[in-house]
């Protein structure tokens, strides 16, 4: 019990042979440290390398280059059955020829745990996932959500150092998925086991994770807590992938501390924003501002980053009104929260209305172009 990291990937590369005979790097020099007891998510669209990374930790794949460490120990070509990690599969991979009880007991039998002890721990695990009384059922007799819980109990009963979850909620409907997200999170805090969670659903990652690794094309783009990933993305890709954002092309005029002044040719204006990664004067950048962070007003409130625009489309969606504006030829989207309960149409933005659009410098990000 030494390492402060539950899992560490050092410079890991995984190459696959394509059917055409070429080579493709599914994981391309990935380095990440996953701390003991944290809920860590790997987030990205399909083919970004998140599942391959998880499979290399589990031992289903071996790195072409680099090394996977679990609890400080290099894993090399160790097979899955010798690694102190367990996996919850996307398809659940339950044994259909066994009952719920037998499924959950399987891993303990492999460890040659005593019979009475198995009985006790299986009971505990099933209680934990609220499936007591289902012992004699077969997986096919359970709902999707219940099968998911069996898969979870089957892995957790082994008390692994690390639990690997490969999009475990993907097959559930939205409502159940939201419930399970919260349950998984509180379960993780209860058992104190490190969870590594693979998902393509950004909201799921933001909801549950202590830290998120955003991946694309086999590389890690950014690792950090949910807040950091959303509020301080370090690249245009991350800002675009997580949540929604308005982007404007520009060139950096000057950098001072963590602020930069950017020339936006489309507007013939200079905008001030926060720098989240290395940019220098003269760099081509993307100015990013999230739709809920733009302020609209009938009168100009601030001088900096303030322009006039015309409402092109205004859509009332209940909690918010989505306002699409034309600002000197650029389309800008703004989410206005409906803070006052009223039926008066004048309280909402109307098509053709002229408004001031204020991009507060502390809400504006200057990001390197990918």
């Amino acid at each position, binding site marked *: 019990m030494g390492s402060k990291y539950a899992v560490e990937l050092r410079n890991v590369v995984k190459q696959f042979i394509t059917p055409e005979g070429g080579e493709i790097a599914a994981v391309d020099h990935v380095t990440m440290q996953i701390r003991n007891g944290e809920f860590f998510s790997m987030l990205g669209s399909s083919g970004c390398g998140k599942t391959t990374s998880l499979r290399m930790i589990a*031992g289903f794949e071996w790195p072409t280059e680099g090394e996977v460490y679990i609890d400080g120990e290099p894993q090399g070509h160790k097979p899955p*059955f010798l690694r102190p990690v367990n996996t919850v599969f996307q398809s659940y991979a339950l044994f*259909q*020829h066994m009952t719920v009880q037998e499924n959950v007991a399987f891993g303990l039998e*492999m460890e040659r745990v005593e019979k009475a002890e198995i009985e006790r721990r299986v009971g505990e695990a099933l209680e934990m996932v609220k499936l007591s009384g289902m012992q004699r059922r077969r997986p096919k007799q359970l709902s999707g959500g219940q099968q998911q819980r069996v898969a979870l109990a089957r892995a957790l009963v082994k008390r692994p150092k690390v639990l690997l979850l490969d999009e475990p909620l993907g097959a559930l409907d939205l409502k159940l998925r939201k419930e399970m997200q919260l349950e998984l999170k509180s379960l993780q805090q209860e058992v104190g086991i490190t969870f590594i969670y693979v998902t393509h659903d950004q909201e799921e990652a933001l909801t549950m994770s202590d830290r998120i690794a955003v991946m694309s094309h086999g590389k890690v783009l950014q690792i950090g807590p949910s807040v950091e990933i959303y509020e301080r993305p370090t690249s245009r890709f991350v800002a675009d992938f997580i949540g929604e954002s308005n982007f404007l092309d520009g060139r950096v005029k000057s950098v001072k501390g963590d602020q930069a002044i950017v020339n936006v040719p489309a507007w013939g204006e200079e905008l001030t924003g926060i720098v989240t990664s290395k940019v220098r004067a003269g760099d081509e950048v993307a100015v990013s501002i999230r739709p809920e962070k733009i302020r609209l007003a009938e009168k100009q409130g601030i001088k900096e980053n303030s322009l006039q625009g015309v409402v092109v489309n205004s859509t009332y969606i209940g909690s918010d009104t989505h306002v699409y504006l034309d600002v000197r030829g650029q389309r800008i989207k703004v989410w206005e929260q409906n803070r006052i309960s009223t039926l008066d149409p004048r309280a909402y933005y109307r098509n053709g209305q002229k408004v001031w659009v204020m991009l507060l410098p502390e809400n504006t990000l200057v990001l390197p172009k990918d």
Partner: protein
Amino acid sequence: MLRRLREDKSIQGTFLITPTLVFMVGLLIIPLILTTIVSFGHRSADGGVIYAFSFDNYLRLIGYSTQCDNGASVCFDPLYAQIMWRSFSLAFNTTVLVILLAYPLAYFIARAHPIRRNTFLFLVLIPLWTNFVIRVYAWMMLLRKEGVINIVFGWIAGMLHIPFTPLEMLYTPGAVLVGMVYEFLPFMILPIYTSLEKIDNSLYEAAADLGANPFRTFLRVTLPLSMPGVVAGTILVFIPVMGTFIVSDLLGGRQVILVGNLIQRQFLDARDPTFGSAASLILMVLTLIVTYFYTRKFGFGEEIVV
């Protein structure tokens, strides 16, 4: 009328099963009834049937006799019981050997790259393109005293300067067993392959993930999940082997007489259709009993669900 056909499921069902029903009643049920009737009759002097209701043929099959050498009033001649037993044990041994040979091959094909699987399955099916009898003849060529195997052994012995007398392989129970195994191998490979192929790869991974080494994964996951294929294959192999007579005739000669041979000789040589019918029915009943107990224990090769 057409509208009713479109809407009424039971009429549709009737139309769908009628062709097979006519076929089965005409060519299975009626002949079976006739066979039963004939089995209770007597053979006439010219090989015809005298209809009666007597159990003589059945008593003969169990070897019941009232003319005994040792002077007892009733004794049993085990001749036909021995033939039955020989057929049963041959079918049993064939099935076991076929499973042992077919399983690893089916596993190999199921785990091969999907592109190559079809090629392998194709290769498994190639022998079936050739006539059954011709393939048995090919085995005679191999096993004969002057056959290929003895010639090759002779060469090797000659090179090593070892005295060699050709092996007597043809017309032995071993030759019949080899022939049976060869003939029925594909019928075991295909169903086992089908059930192995259906096992999702994630199940193997899950077993490994939970700490099972490859051997225990096989025992606890692969084998139980592929049992439907083994059961289906066993039914496809055991039943035909119980009734076969060509393989034993050609490769076993007079040494290996099975129920199939017995029945065939009653109809074609001994000209006693009544005794042949009785033997056929007994064979059918025995096979049904064995199959019944087997499927009661292992299921009918359907999915193991619920």
